[in-house]
């Protein structure tokens, strides 16, 4: 990693914990050259390209794959119980995949802090899930598995429609709130010996509802969705959910990420419009990229919406080191 990317790597960790994304302090020479060249680009040609993109057919390749995986994963839980096929027993908080323990990192953390006693199965399950998401991209848990993410995506569509109709506006908030909520719930679990986050986690509530049948707890999930539709876009995932931060920390070390290529980018900013965490895509803003190729930071959920929407293929899925190997 060159010094520019190294600095960005640590900057992006701070950004995940809530710092605002800032203009880079230093940019590699090659990237600077490109930035300068781009300033000279013909504006009409750019506008024509933008227009062509707007009229082009929308691609949903990664979104469809992701929805299929998410639905399949959650249905596997449901069917394992309903038809007693015992492939994936349990719920998202903790389960067994053909007998092998899997335990959600955040739920495990809450239990460890509250109970202050760790049994072997808990260690095995947590370790397995840690390695799993370390390999698969950290917050990819959010967009590829979490059932709340999917319903929130649908709610987001309604929200964006209402915004377009000028009926509501997105009230954005301070992202440090999520870090605060992570700390508060951890401290609450430790101090009270009660896993209070698990009682209000929409991920757990939805997962259990899908498997064991609906309950009144779904009202809380509904309240969150209403809040997101009428008040603040994707507020729970963006500003509150400690699960996202936990997996984000795992994602710091993950080889799976989105890679940005500066040269081909038109800087239309469509990727930032569809992104759940646009602060990780600050690098696509004109003049911001520190190098010709920039990996996207750990808060990225690897959902692929930007990959789908990018007209020039400047954003792609990438596995660190794999291209070198091949």
């Amino acid at each position, binding site marked *: 990693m060159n010094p520019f990317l190294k600095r960005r790597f640590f900057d992006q960790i701070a950004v995940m914990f809530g710092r605002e994304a800032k203009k880079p*302090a*230093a940019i590699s020479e090659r990237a600077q050259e490109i930035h300068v060249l781009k300033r000279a680009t013909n504006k009409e040609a750019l506008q024509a390209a933008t227009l062509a993109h707007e009229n082009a057919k929308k691609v949903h390749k990664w979104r469809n794959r992701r929805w299929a995986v998410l639905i399949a994963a959650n249905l596997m839980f449901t069917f394992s119980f309903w038809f007693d096929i015992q492939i994936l027993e*349990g*719920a998202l908080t903790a389960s067994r995949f053909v007998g092998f323990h899997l335990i959600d990192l955040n739920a495990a953390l809450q239990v460890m802090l509250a109970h202050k*006693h760790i049994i072997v199965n808990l260690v095995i399950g947590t370790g397995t899930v840690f390695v799993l998401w370390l390999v698969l991209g950290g917050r990819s848990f959010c967009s590829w598995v979490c059932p709340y993410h999917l319903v929130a995506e649908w709610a987001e569509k309604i929200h964006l429609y209402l915004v377009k109709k000028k009926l509501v506006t997105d009230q954005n908030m301070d992202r440090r709130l999520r870090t605060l909520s992570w700390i508060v719930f951890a401290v*609450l679990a430790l101090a009270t*010996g*009660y896993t209070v986050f698990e009682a209000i986690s929409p991920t757990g509530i939805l997962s259990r509802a899908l498997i064991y049948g609906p309950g009144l*707890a779904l009202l809380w999930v509904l309240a969150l969705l209403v809040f997101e539709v009428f008040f603040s876009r994707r507020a729970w995932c963006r500003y*509150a959910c400690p699960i996202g931060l936990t997996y984000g920390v795992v994602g710091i070390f993950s080889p799976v990420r989105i890679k940005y290529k500066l040269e081909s980018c038109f800087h239309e900013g469509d990727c930032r419009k569809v992104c759940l965490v646009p602060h990780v895509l600050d690098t696509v803003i004109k003049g911001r990229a520190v190098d010709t190729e920039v990996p996207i930071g750990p808060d990225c959920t690897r959902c692929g919406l930007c990959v789908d929407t990018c007209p020039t293929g400047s954003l792609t899925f990438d596995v660190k080191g794999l291209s070198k190997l091949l």
Partner: protein
Amino acid sequence: MSEPKPPDTPKPPPSRERMQQARRRWLRTVLLTGGVMGAALSGFLPLVYARTKRLRPPGALDEKDFLASCIKCGQCVQVCPVQAIKLADLVDGVAVGVPYIDAREQACDFSCDAVQCILACPTGALVYKKPAFLGVRKGAKLAAAPILKAKEKDPEPTLNLGERIGVARLTRPEACLAIQGKGFKGQVRGPSFKGRMRYMEVNRWKPIGISEHPYDLAECDLCVRECPVKGAISIETVFAPDGSKRKSPVVHEPCVGCGVCEMICPVEPTCIVVDAREVWNT
């Protein structure tokens, strides 16, 4: 490193509008924090309700430890052959997603033979043997491993269970059929009752609906007859307050609190209940 130094230009002061926006966003953030924290506090509400004691699955730690260690995954629900274990909803007076048993509707009759729910628990909220640092309440510990009547002829007839989850208690002796010397004929709890039980003489491995198994008893002894644990309850001759002799179900020390007696009692409301988390007092 060939970092070009950024030019040192003094920052212009933020515009009024900018500052106002920042202030508003700060306010909204504070509001959402308040909202989430308020909702989180409602997560503690079940603890207030915790006074309405719910029966936990066998092997459950003491209530506070149980609530701390349960990860709310429902694996215990999935392995139970009679589906005695349910997960609590918002209004069930216990934490959301935490397992409990409503013995009157469906008691644990140990038809799994091995307390599978304990085996399924990934976090040690249900345990065969408590870790050393957790104390055992006086009277909660069973004097001996309970002998399962269904397994009596097996080489290993006991259940791997060290503590009771409750104790059965005769709450309405005046209505008890055994005490009145009455018999019972027909379907216990009526034709629409969904509760299930394993009947050894029918099929050891497949529990059937209680409504599919009618009785014809000259003297009701259902709570004793269907109790899965050996020596936990018996019909004894006791002296009534007026000095007269009569028969009555009597609960003994081996009672683990499974709740089968509560489920099988044909009187409405039931004459015998399990006091959840109760200990044995001699």
